[in-house]
């Protein structure tokens, strides 16, 4: 897992993506720009965050889940 450590906490890149999602529903392109990460890393990272229940996918865009929001407070 590139965005979630084995202990279940987000890695540095995972945290960057979660913080970028703070502004609400965003496309991978927007998140990549805000997080300063390559688009391919963000696409795979957002999938991981969603699988871990930290983000939610709505069509082609993502937003923070309640769990994800708690982590970046």
């Amino acid at each position, binding site marked *: *897992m*590139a*965005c979630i450590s084995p202990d279940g906490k987000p890695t540095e890149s995972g945290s960057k993506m979660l913080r970028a999602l703070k502004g609400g529903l965003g496309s991978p392109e927007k998140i990549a720009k805000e997080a300063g990460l*390559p*688009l*391919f*890393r963000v*696409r*795979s*990272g957002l*999938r*991981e965050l969603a699988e871990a229940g930290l983000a939610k996918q709505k069509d082609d865009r993502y937003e923070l889940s309640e769990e994800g929001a708690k982590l970046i407070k």
Partner: protein
Amino acid sequence: MEEIKEQTGHMPRIGEPAPAFEAVTTHGKLKLEDFKGSWLILFSHPADFTPVCTTEFIAFTEIHPELQKRGVELLGLSVDSTSSHIAWVRNVEEKTKVRISFPIIADLNKEVSLAYGMIHPGQSKTETVRCVFIIDPNQIIRTILYYPLTTGRNMDEILRIIDALQTTDKNAVATPANWRPGDMVVVPPPNTQEMAEERLKQGYECTDWYLCKKKL
């Protein structure tokens, strides 16, 4: 015949969609579709902790910023494990101060290698040869290069091919032998006699009706 096919897998061709994959890499699980919209250089190497591959990884890292300026991502592959890749990347950094900046697929089950025809049993039945697949933003294979195990790749040529492909796409032209950015490009040959006659009046530098060049 079937045995050879089993060992080599599918041989992709230029102009075909790149075979889809989902693979474990040093940057997490990646799918081919994650690279949609970017150019991608997918390349294989025989094994981690080997001399020629180490020089190639350093060389790929050195051209990575130039590739990124052109909207190109890099993705390496060998049949070694993620742990081996991580250990090798860390070793390269420790010994040479070069930090490998791109993901590397750990293709332990050879799924991607076989889909891309990267195993050539005449060279090695267990390792991938040195392949380069240049895949465009629509995920179509645009160039395939194969090098033997003993010959390291030429980064200038890889950059030159990217420049040539992007110039071709942007301007609907072709590029002549040994072309470099800034050189004249080849105007596509005419398809009719009328077009051939008109071609000669259009101010291009023409050797004859079928070979005309222009400056961009």
